[in-house]
């Protein structure tokens, strides 16, 4: 209990400290302070996302009824680009908590929306595909639900949680410039943080400050990667259960991290024990609470659609709406090109990393992928402006936003090839063509599909920060669904914002249903 309680108290102290810093700081505070604020904010959002992911991922994996409800909703939420949440944020936080708290909550919520979904999907996937023998063992020894959660569920999803946390963390950086500048209607709120600092400097065309902001972000990303994520990742590897792999996991981490890891996992378990205590209290009502939540969600979306329709009827069509079909086509083509270009380098590189065990590159790419590409955005706007060059800039941005999902999934696919299959293909002398056709390809395809789904989701999301950019007076603005959405949010036109979001979500869902779900079910049949 002590460890769990101390962790909770520690968090409470953090939150108070953060709030104090927040109210005493201003837009002109030292960039270091702003960076600190941003890190706090991201940390809180990550905690929320972890809780969200654990809860809904577990729920969806446990019962197929819940799965049918949760997964489509997550799917929709995932496909809504971050600025699409602005209206919701407005209703939820800004009007209920006026002032600093409301803005702060909105900002954390926006960061949360860029972190949460992949965590939930990760938990769902890994719990769904776990070794069924584990359950049987747990049942045969009569483990209670609580024990199952602590001793079977948490350890089995820990690698996914850590791995996806790293991903979420880099996505949050990617969207930070958007999340820390909350513009609703005519008012633009700059939340105190390094993201808004960067955005503000870029708008003013202040190059030194832009570079300072960039440098701060980059160095903090590297710092956190080396001192937090890397050790955590290594620690999580000791959890991997790969019965067919005759690879012996070396004990990487040194004593300090071992201690830290043990302490943390103990503390986390104790926090869950405490949560379980409360859970037991609300347990009788859990169904009602859950259904209540979903009704609210569904009613909320209905309300949103109706309200948009109402606005449309009362104010008439905005002229920008007529360009939606063309905008979607353009955006789609951009993502497609970015996707193909990404595949073109990812497949060979991952193969080389796997084949020649270049674990060194593995680490480097992890670090690079955490760099917030969008922070470079103002600079990209500066370099690639005008005509076809802007188009190149947009595609580079989309690639930066989507390719890492592909990269890590493909790499994981290669690395999941059991070593006895490698040996069998040697014993039976498969030549390179056969080896590709019979071993590498089939092994990688499932993860390639999963990676592609998330990559495309990320691509659609990245549109909103790729299709418009400005640095001082240098601006580029390419017609696309992302730039349309940004414009209409900026203009405060609720009707067109609503329509664009609805169309956006529909297009993404349609693609999911038509392309990816088909491929996915095919993949499941093969395995």
């Amino acid at each position: 209990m002590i460890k769990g309680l101390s962790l909770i108290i520690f968090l409470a102290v953090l939150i108070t400290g953060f709030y104090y810093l927040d109210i005493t700081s201003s837009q002109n505070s030292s960039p270091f302070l702003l960076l600190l604020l941003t890190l706090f904010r991201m940390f809180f959002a990550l905690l929320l996302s972890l809780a969200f992911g654990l809860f809904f991922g577990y729920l969806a994996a446990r019962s197929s009824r819940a799965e049918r409800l949760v997964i489509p909703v997550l799917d929709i939420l995932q496909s809504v680009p971050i600025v699409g949440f602005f209206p919701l944020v407005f209703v939820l936080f800004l009007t209920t908590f006026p002032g600093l708290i409301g803005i702060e909550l909105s900002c954390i919520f926006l960061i949360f929306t860029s972190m949460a979904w992949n965590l939930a999907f990760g938990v769902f996937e890994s719990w769904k595909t776990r070794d069924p023998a584990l359950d049987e063992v747990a049942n045969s020894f009569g483990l209670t639900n609580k024990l199952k959660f602590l001793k079977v569920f948490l350890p089995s999803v820990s690698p996914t949680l850590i791995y996806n946390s790293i991903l979420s963390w880099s996505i949050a950086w990617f969207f930070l410039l958007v999340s820390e500048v909350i513009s609703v209607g005519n008012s633009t709120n700059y939340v105190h943080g390094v993201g808004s600092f960067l955005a503000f400097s870029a708008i003013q065309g202040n190059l030194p400050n832009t570079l300072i902001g960039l440098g701060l972000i980059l160095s903090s990303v590297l710092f956190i990667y080396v001192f937090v994520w890397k050790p955590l990742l290594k620690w999580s590897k000791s959890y991997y259960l790969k019965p067919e792999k005759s690879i012996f996991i070396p004990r990487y981490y040194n004593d300090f991290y071992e201690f830290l890891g043990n302490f943390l996992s103990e503390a986390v378990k104790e926090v869950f024990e405490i949560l379980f205590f409360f859970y037991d209290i609300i347990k009788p009502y859990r169904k009602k609470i859950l259904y209540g939540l979903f009704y609210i969600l569904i009613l909320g979306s209905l309300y949103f659609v109706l309200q948009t329709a109402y606005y449309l009827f009362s104010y008439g069509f905005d002229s920008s709406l007529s360009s939606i079909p063309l905008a979607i086509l353009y955006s789609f083509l951009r993502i497609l090109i970015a996707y193909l270009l990404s595949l073109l380098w990812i497949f060979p590189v991952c193969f080389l990393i796997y084949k020649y065990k270049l674990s060194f590159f593995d680490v480097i790419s992890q670090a690079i992928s955490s760099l917030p590409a969008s922070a470079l955005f103002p600079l990209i706007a500066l370099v690639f402006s005008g005509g076809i060059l802007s188009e190149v800039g947009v595609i580079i941005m989309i690639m930066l936003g989507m390719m890492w999902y592909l990269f890590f999934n493909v790499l994981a696919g290669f690395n999941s090839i059991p070593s006895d299959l490698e040996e069998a293909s040697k014993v039976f002398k498969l030549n390179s063509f056969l080896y590709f056709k019979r071993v590498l390809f089939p092994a990688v395809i499932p993860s390639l599909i999963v990676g592609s789904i998330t990559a495309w989701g990320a691509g659609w999301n990245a549109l909103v920060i790729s299709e418009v950019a400005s640095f001082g007076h240098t601006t580029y603005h390419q017609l696309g669904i992302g730039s349309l959405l940004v414009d209409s949010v900026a203009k405060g036109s609720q009707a067109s914002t609503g329509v664009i979001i609805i169309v956006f979500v529909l297009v993404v869902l349609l693609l999911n249903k038509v392309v990816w779900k088909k491929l996915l079910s095919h993949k499941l049949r093969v395995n």
Partner: protein
Amino acid sequence: MSDLLVVKDLRKVYETNDRQLELFKDLSFTMEDREFVSIIGPSGCGKSTLLRLIAGLDKPTSGSIVFQGQKVINENLGISMVFQSFGLFPWLNVIDNVAIGLEAKGMNKKDRYEIAKKYIEKVGLDGYEETYPSELSGGMKQRVGVARALAVTPTLLCMDEPFSALDALTAENLREEVLLLWEDKEFPPDSVLMVTHNVEEAVYMSTRILVLSEKPAKLIKDVKISLDRPRNKKSEEFQEYTDLIYSCLT
């Protein structure tokens, strides 16, 4: 008879971050053409590793392995293997798994399926050609592994506990099949190297049994089994051999 396989002063050390694991120390033995050699030893002493070294899947730390007069460096053309962990391709059905070595030799689909079918029948899996490994029981997977190793007609067949997951009757039948192929001078495999924990099985099938010690494994006994075939498990001589092996193990 000529030497088929010469293992000399073999040493294998695995390095992990915090310790060194020495598997063999100066392990030497030879195997002649047309022999059926079984290896028995305590779990974890390095039997599977030994097979992997012989098949060229891993490199010895020092010492040498010579097969048919040539030093084993890479995977060897004349050696095939039944893996302890089966090593089946989960995305290939039974017949494609069995035929994979033939496909690698460039054989066309019709021919390789014909051969694969023959071996699938030999291991008693006819009717399961289209099934995927995930739908097979442990013993069935093992039999697919045996069929796949036989199908490539190797000079030396290495088997890592090939009958361990089978029921008594199926194991009996499969042993007879393997013995028949081995005894038949026309058909490969000419020689067999088998790892097993089953002493009776070793005495029943082998011409020689090598008993290994705990790691670092040394050869503690090299027993030639001179019994006529078919062997009678109830006979006194048979009992004497099994007793001898058991006494080496304890």
